């Protein structure tokens, strides 16, 4: 019995974790207009509806664009900041690090609210760009922290060796630093994309017409009870699992060989 305890716990934990996902996916196949029990025979009508919903598909594309764009910016800015702080001794570096990390401790709602006030008072139009700016603000500290933490003596020694061999600064960064730090750069990028993709409140406050997927889903949520919500949730889930499994099989496994 004792030996089985961990496995029982594991099972119970997984049931808990997958409960809402199960309900979601099950009722996305509901034939009928309400995603509530009883479940009437499987139907693909809702998937058909969401795939032909232009607003929803546009929001999906917008989310991808904002996620990739803002994550790329965050990773680039974070990488250079980490490099600068690690390579050079700067006065007040502790303060700089503090400022860069600070947004991590602040709720997204507050970040969004602050930006909303400043941007609208300065006359900026709200759009996907403003939402992306907000996402860079929340992802930059993460990217910086992850990359900075992985900078170590091995990498610095390699850099020193390259410089000794006559490489210019740009070459050192591009040919030595980045390849060595690639795992953490990739991790930072991946994490940023994940956070930005699903982020709601900042996108909600800072967009006008072109919205991200979570905001569009929120509008759907306010527009009437329907299994469309289940369908889009399951759809997003399906895409994400595919991507993750793909990465797992083709990228991570290969690295291990």
């Amino acid at each position, binding site marked *: 019995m004792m030996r089985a305890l961990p496995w029982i716990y594991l099972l119970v934990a997984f049931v808990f974790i997958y409960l809402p996902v199960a309900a979601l996916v099950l009722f996305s196949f509901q034939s*009928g*207009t*309400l995603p509530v029990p009883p479940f009437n025979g499987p139907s693909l009508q809702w998937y058909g509806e969401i795939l032909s919903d232009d607003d929803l598909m546009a929001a999906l594309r917008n989310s991808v664009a904002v996620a990739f764009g803002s994550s*790329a910016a965050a990773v680039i800015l974070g990488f250079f900041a980490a490099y600068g702080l690690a390579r050079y001794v700067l006065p007040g570096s502790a303060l700089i690090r503090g400022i860069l990390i600070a947004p991590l401790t602040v709720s997204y709602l507050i970040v969004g609210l602050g930006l909303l006030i400043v941007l609208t008072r300065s006359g900026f139009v709200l759009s996907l760009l403003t939402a992306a700016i907000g996402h860079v603000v929340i992802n930059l500290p993460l990217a910086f922290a992850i990359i900075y933490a992985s900078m170590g003596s091995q990498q610095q020694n390699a850099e020193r060796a390259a410089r000794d061999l006559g490489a210019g600064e740009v070459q050192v960064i591009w040919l030595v630093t*980045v390849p060595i730090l690639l795992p953490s750069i990739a991790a930072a990028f991946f994490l940023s994309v994940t956070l930005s993709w699903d982020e709601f409140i900042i996108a909600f406050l800072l967009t006008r017409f072109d919205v991200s997927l979570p905001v569009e889903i929120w*509008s759907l949520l306010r*527009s*009437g009870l329907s299994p469309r919500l289940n369908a889009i949730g399951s759809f997003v889930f399906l895409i994400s699992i595919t991507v993750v499994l793909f990465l797992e099989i083709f990228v991570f496994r290969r690295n291990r060989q």
Partner: protein
Amino acid sequence: MKCMRKILLSTISMVAVASNAAAKDELNALVWCDHTDPALIEPFETEHNVKVNLREYEGTGAALALLEQSRPGDWDVLVIDGIDVFRAVEAGILAPLAVDELPTADFFPEVVMAENNSVDGVTYAVTEKFGYNTVSYNSSKVDQSDMEDLSTIWSDKYNGRISIYDYYLPVMGLAAIAEGIPTAKIGSGDLDQIGDVLSIMRSNAASVAGVVAAQTALATGEVDIVVGGGEWLTAVLAGERPELTWTIPKEGAVRWAQSIGVVEGSKNSDLAMKFINYIVSPEGQARLATSSCFWGMPANAKAGDILTDDQKAVLRWNQQPDYLALTQLYPAPDADLDAEMQDLWLETLQQ
């Protein structure tokens, strides 16, 4: 390295594609969720070959703030609560409307509401849809007769089976009517009485809910009664769940109305006017009345020629004259009273 480059390239191209909108005329509208139904918007878009950009908003305060922070020309059309039109006019947000071009003669007379839609004799908006904030309920779970009397709707008998619609004006209006206070006459002194009624409602309620939350709660059996509900809440569900219905109690209920107008400074005022013309035309009205977010009575009575008998039955088309006579408009408090009412609402929500 290669995959990094690929990611950057695809990012740039995606951004380029996303910002490459079609070069049609565009109409920017700030609306309630019932205007986002493609069945309503697409016929207009195809006929005039334009793109209608829609943004939904939650409360009048948010809309007014959004509009005040926008530059002239950012918005063309505004949908707003009938009783808040004067606020929009005061803030310089609405432009005068050429109401003579609109078929208001075909409207139900009680909902033309010229006084609400105009300021100093100039008309700024036109009513497009109306309905009632009364009580929605599950007829298979509650006593029909209890629903016909305001005092028994939120009584202890239904403790835990009630949800309150999350909008202070109509619910406080209902509370006032229950106490015999006409909604038009609510003053600071009445707030204590209204507050007591709200407390009773709240103590018997399981939740306070917005549109979808209330629909979900009724549909899943969380609650059997929604105070402040009405046709707008249950009509959408009526097809599949005919036991979810509504009624107007004998003391009366509150009538809501939404108006539509052209935004001041719009660069597309002709197109905006065409849009409004479409919305108040019988076809537009019929589609708006049965829009997927919430249903309501069309302001234009001629829409009755287009609606099906089933749809009209759900809307209680034939009982409208009685209902219109029995119901009162929303409370229309001034800024100070409004702040007090909102505070009272939030206080009672969080007992």
